[in-house]
């Protein structure tokens, strides 16, 4: 038994000697993570304190799970939490595949010039601030002058005031988000596609595959590891919807479906300087996210041998 441990230590030492360069390469990043991300994490204590910035993390009194209790007893928070999951869940279903599809479509584009041009253009909206995007969306959906409603009424429907209807909010939010980000997000997949050996396509072509089939049976499986990684990360973000865009788009009238944890925190926490509550909400999210990811990662490692760690 003891000799086994000794052997392990010896192996370890030998491995370290053999691969020391590898550890040197890792070192800066490791130090960085420790110094810039892990060191301040002691600040997560705030979630369990009645935090006053002036008193500081150490000087603020402990309150145990009080902040969590406050959150979980707050029906508005619960609703925001459910909304968050719903929006990102729907996003996962409807928005997540879009950049993949887009990347696949770009990949099928024959004209080099066309491909360059269109790729450049579709990633443009990413750079346009959400304020402008929200403005455009509001204009498009205006019940009186918006293009969408003009089309609707020309088809004989009544105009819809989309942005005040809770039923429509998710559609509008996810849809416009896709439109804004899909082009940019497709870059990851384009990079993955670039790594596929062209001989596979040749082989498939001779085997009689149509382009459609090649897309499905070659391209897609080959970028699957990337998709899975992105998916797992996305699953980790199920409990996270950024507040900036929502705030521009939502209305009290649509809170029912639009109010998410981050907007809740924004309204209640930061404006009123309730860092403790905000941190608690963040921590609550993180724990759930982590549990989700942990599961997803485990499943993925089993099923596809791709994993986040």
């Amino acid at each position, binding site marked *: 038994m003891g000799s086994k441990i000794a052997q392990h230590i010896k192996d370890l030492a030998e491995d370290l000697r053999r691969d020391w360069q590898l550890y040197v390469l890792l070192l800066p990043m490791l130090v960085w993570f420790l110094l810039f991300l892990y060191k301040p994490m002691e600040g997560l204590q705030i979630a369990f304190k009645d935090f006053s910035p002036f008193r500081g993390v150490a000087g603020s009194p402990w309150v145990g799970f009080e902040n969590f209790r406050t959150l979980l007893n707050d029906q508005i928070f619960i609703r925001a939490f459910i909304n968050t999951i719903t929006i990102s869940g729907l996003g996962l279903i409807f928005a997540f595949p879009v950049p993949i599809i887009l990347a696949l479509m770009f990949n099928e584009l024959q004209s080099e010039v066309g491909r360059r041009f269109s790729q450049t253009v579709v990633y443009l909206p990413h750079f346009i601030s959400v304020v402008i995007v929200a403005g455009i969306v509001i204009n498009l959906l205006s019940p009186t002058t918006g293009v969408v409603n003009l089309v609707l009424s020309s088809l004989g429907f009544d105009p819809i005031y989309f942005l005040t209807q809770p039923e429509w909010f998710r559609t509008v939010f996810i849809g416009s988000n896709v439109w804004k980000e899909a082009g940019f997000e497709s870059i990851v997949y384009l990079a993955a596609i670039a790594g596929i*050996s062209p*001989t*596979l396509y*040749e*082989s*498939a*072509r*001779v*085997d*009689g*595959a*149509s382009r459609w*089939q090649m897309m499905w*049976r*070659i391209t897609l*499986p*080959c970028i*699957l590891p990337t998709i899975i990684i992105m998916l797992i990360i996305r699953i980790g973000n199920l409990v996270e919807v950024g507040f900036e865009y929502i705030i521009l788009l939502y209305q009290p009238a649509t809170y029912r479906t639009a109010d998410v944890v981050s907007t809740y925190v924004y309204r209640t926490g930061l404006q009123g300087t309730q860092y403790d509550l905000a941190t608690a909400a963040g921590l609550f999210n993180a724990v759930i996210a982590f549990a989700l990811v942990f599961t997803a990662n485990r499943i993925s490692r089993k099923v596809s041998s791709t994993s986040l760690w």
Partner: protein
Amino acid sequence: MSAVELNDVVKRYGALEVVHSIKLSVSPGEFVVLVGPSGCGKSTTLRMVAGLEDISDGTISIGGRVVNRVAPKDRDVAMVFQNYALYPHLNVAENIAFGLRVRGEKNDVVEAAVNEAAAILDLMPYLKRKPADLSGGQRQRVAMGRAIVRKPQVFLFDEPLSNLDAKLRTQMRAEIKRLHKRMDVTSIYVTHDQVEAMTLADRIVVMNGGRVEQVGSPMELFLNPANAFVASFLGSPPMNLVAARVEAANGAAVACVDGNVPVQFRMPAAIAAGMRAGQKVLVGLRPEHLDIEVGRPGADTQEIATAVDLVEPLGSEALLHCRIGGQPVVAKVDTPVDGRSLSDVARLAIPTARLHVFDVETGKAINGQA
């Protein structure tokens, strides 16, 4: 009507022309083998037939239809790739099944076909593995399997056996031959292994530098190579080519090799008729026709002095690397049973009838009818 016809096919990569105006007509059911040195354009030609490379000039027809602009999948051909091109995300069974799946074959049909192919190729134990977990030879067999499960109009093989061991290779060769007999599918087969070429081919196409040097049945090419290149390319070890000069001696033409020890070859009458005095020629001697059993009488055999540099034993035979008139010559001889040392061999016996002679300048064979 030819099954496959290449008409002045040219392939250029940018300014570089790698295939120059190839003409070839393959009859239905015929097994044609392309051989030639590395980089001579065999794969490129095959890929043009498959539809994987644009044809820079000329036309290719399959089954009478010009296919220059027909998609590979509509040409009804199957191909084994030189670099395998296995789908890394699919296991062996799925790799083999791919061609059938994309054609929407039924499950049981696919399964049966896969099992059949796997059995032929000795792949049964590996069906569930991914290509990454296979040895080189196993991968190559999978690539073979992928082609043979389909029943295409034309088979294209690009060195399908190059990574197999001798035993499997012989076995696979026979298997391919049998398959071809059974399915009677037109096949174009690229190889650099002339044993494969000789045994499999109905006709062999010898290529060199993007050109066709000679087309013919294996024995035709072996016995009557049109030029020095073909002669030296077929046969293993290749035919020895000894540079010589034609002189008239005793009324008949002889080829003289200059050197420290000048050597003369007597010519068969048919060839001698085509020779001019002073002509520079290459005298072709197949290693397996050279013999160490000297001293046997007869006008049909001549003896030549030699010096042995190196002996490579091959088991029951051996390769003698020796020199004739200073020029290297390889002889393939039986290992003497009497224990004589092969390094001592001083003279080689050459059957005169089996001499070949090529003009140095044109490379063409001199065979009297010229």
